[in-house]
């Protein structure tokens, strides 16, 4: 009897030691991201931190600047998927095809409090009740405005209480004409979805309603699109596609940097672009609203592919990367707004000292938090974008009227979603 006990003990000890060795066995994970070279450096710095924390895990960074989705899909189809992938709006194409691991069990067993760490940011990465990614980066689209132009026109600066009325009045006052030619635009936007979509939500409209059905045929959506197009063709305070082509660009950001535009809407990244522009005085503010508030959060999450051979280790890594220490690196390097709420509210982020060489209103990001719209992140996101831009391209060229545009959008989306 005693002998048997001893034998059992020995065996279980042996097994335990084997399993401990197994846990410490070196694991190599591959993490795939997109972005600029400075994004790549920021990810590498955070990975270095993670590797210090978990000495047995090596993380290999796969950096893909262009055609990211195509590369990931090709890798997945070829059975060579990375363990961890950065994903954004296209995520539910992957989760609906079962290509991502549902993280719920690992979140529960790790005792990770999602709301405490991410606020509401993680909700967009849920599909059919399961969490498919941890939010990593994120920040609302905000207004950048040229303070010199506002001062010259004697206007108050934009703030969270602004409505379309304030916005339009300011844009009109800030538009400078010489004869027929506009030399300074009050506002500049275009066909990119975050811009027009924000206006729809600011007017209490939506792209998809609560039941997931297309909602372009609402009065709110039509009114918002009309107002958005009127900024270009009626009030003439914003450049048309043709004006852009004549100005030699297709984006408002360079026009703002050149001092040709008073207000633009864009993301955190523009701080780094504007920081070193000489003689440009600017600040940031939350985006205006109308009957509601609405802005788009730009962000990305980290997901684990369902084919990963080391899901536990992969979760340790993404959990670490979204925790305070690794998220602080994002702020230190001025890469983006972090998804971690504690870091978002840290003095380091609010002071802006690591990424802006001036005192700017960093509270704009916090004040935008409750205006962030729940994006219609359906599995067919890419196709929906394509369908919508086909109609809106013509609408923003003023080639079709609002009624035709919204009817066409409604019909096309209904057809897509059925």
């Amino acid at each position, binding site marked *: 009897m005693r002998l048997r006990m001893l034998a059992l003990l020995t065996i279980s000890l042996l097994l335990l030691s084997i399993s401990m060795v197994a846990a410490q066995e070196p694991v190599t994970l591959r993490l795939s991201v997109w972005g600029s070279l400075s994004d790549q450096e920021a990810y590498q710095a955070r990975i270095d931190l993670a590797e210090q924390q978990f000495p047995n895990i090596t993380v290999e960074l796969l950096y893909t600047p262009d055609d990211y989705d195509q590369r990931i899909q090709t890798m997945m189809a070829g059975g060579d998927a990375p363990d961890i992938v950065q994903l954004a709006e296209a995520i539910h194409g992957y989760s609906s095809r079962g*290509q991502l691991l549902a993280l719920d069990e690992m979140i529960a067993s790790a005792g990770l409090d999602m709301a405490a760490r991410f606020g509401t940011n993680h909700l967009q990465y849920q599909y059919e009740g399961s969490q498919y990614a941890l939010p990593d980066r994120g920040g609302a689209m905000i207004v950048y405005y040229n303070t010199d132009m506002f001062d010259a026109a004697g206007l108050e600066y934009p703030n969270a209480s602004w409505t379309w009325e304030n916005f339009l009045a300011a844009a009109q006052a800030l538009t400078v004409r010489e004869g027929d030619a506009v030399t300074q635009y009050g506002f500049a936007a275009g066909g990119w979805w975050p811009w027009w979509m924000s206006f729809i939500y600011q007017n209490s409209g939506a792209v998809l309603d609560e039941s997931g059905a297309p909602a372009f045929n609402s009065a709110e959506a039509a009114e918002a699109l009309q107002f958005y197009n009127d900024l270009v063709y009626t009030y003439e305070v914003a450049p048309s596609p043709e004006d852009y*082509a004549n100005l030699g660009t297709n984006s408002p950001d360079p026009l703002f940097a050149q001092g040709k535009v008073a207000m633009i809407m864009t993301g955190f990244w523009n701080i780094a672009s504007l920081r070193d522009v000489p003689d440009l005085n600017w600040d940031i503010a939350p985006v205006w609203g109308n009957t509601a508030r609405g802005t788009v959060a730009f962000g990305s999450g980290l997901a684990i592919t369902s084919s990963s051979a080391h899901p536990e280790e992969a979760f340790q890594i993404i959990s670490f990367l979204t925790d305070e220490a690794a998220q602080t690196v994002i702020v230190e390097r001025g890469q983006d707004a972090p998804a971690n709420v504690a870091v978002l509210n840290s003095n380091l982020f609010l002071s802006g000292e690591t990424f802006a060489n001036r005192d700017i209103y960093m509270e704009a990001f916090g004040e935008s938090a409750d205006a962030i719209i729940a994006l219609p992140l359906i599995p067919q996101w890419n196709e929906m974008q394509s369908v919508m831009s086909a109609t809106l391209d013509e609408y923003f060229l003023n080639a079709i009227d609002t009624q035709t545009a919204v009817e066409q959008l409604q019909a096309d989306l209904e057809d897509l979603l059925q």
Partner: protein
Amino acid sequence: MAASQAGLKQTRLITRTGGWLNASRREALWFYLIISPWLVGLLLLLAGPMLYSIYLSFTDWNLFNAPEWVGFDNYIRLFTRDRTFGYALGNTFYYTFLYVPLNIVLSLGIAYLLNKRLPGIRLFRTVIYLPYVVPVVATTMVFRWVFAPDNGLLNSFLALLGIDGPAWLLTPEWVKIALVIMSLWGVGSSVVFLLAGMQGIPAELYEAAAIDGASERQHFFGITLPMLSPVIFFNMIMSIIASLQTFTQVYILNAEPNTPGNAIVMIIPYLFDNAFRFNKMGYASAIAWVLFVIIFAFTLLVIRSSSAWVFYENEMKR
């Protein structure tokens, strides 16, 4: 060892000419042996996937889950409900019908001029061919400036003539014309074939015609054109197929935020979007087969018509 054995076998085969492996059979064997890499490649890499894509075109397949049989649904949807495919078909035909004839006429004219014996003509020949060597991606980027609304090269030129040019790439009615102009810039590839054909026309024909007092015009229409008709025929088929498969220019222009998408979408870019952006492989396969039938029909039509207008030197006129 193996080599000497093979050598032995070969000599034995050669000596036994009366056996099953006579000279012609041996030749056939060698033929299949030598061609087999291509044959295997054709079967595995081309015929296999082609047949599979016929099957896929009757399924709903997102690349990752198992294909789901849907019968003719993809084809029915293409022709009854898919507005974008309608635009793609229309735009592709519009482009092809405009581009192919212009390409033939223009390349013939240029080849005729380049065939003149003038000092420095080689330089002109090179210059005409150069655009074809430039990657389409680069051409497209450059032409965005050429087609800029107010101060673009083309509209600045038109302004000299007192014409107020349109916003080429931003107007649904003009964007396809702009594409045709852009493609005609690469006319050099057709010119090279025609030029080679022209230089192959025997000088005796022109001498004989000159003795008979034929004019320059008669030379061209009576000798050059008929003698070139096989080359024109070749150019025509190639440019029809290439136009029906236009991809790069459209893909790049459509990546621009303000390009009117419906006015420029064509069959292959739409196929690409469905396959690789929307993950609808089954639907994309159906588009591929529709395009195959279209290309096949056009090619057949041109080949059938060729007996009426293509003249081969050593053939009696039927």
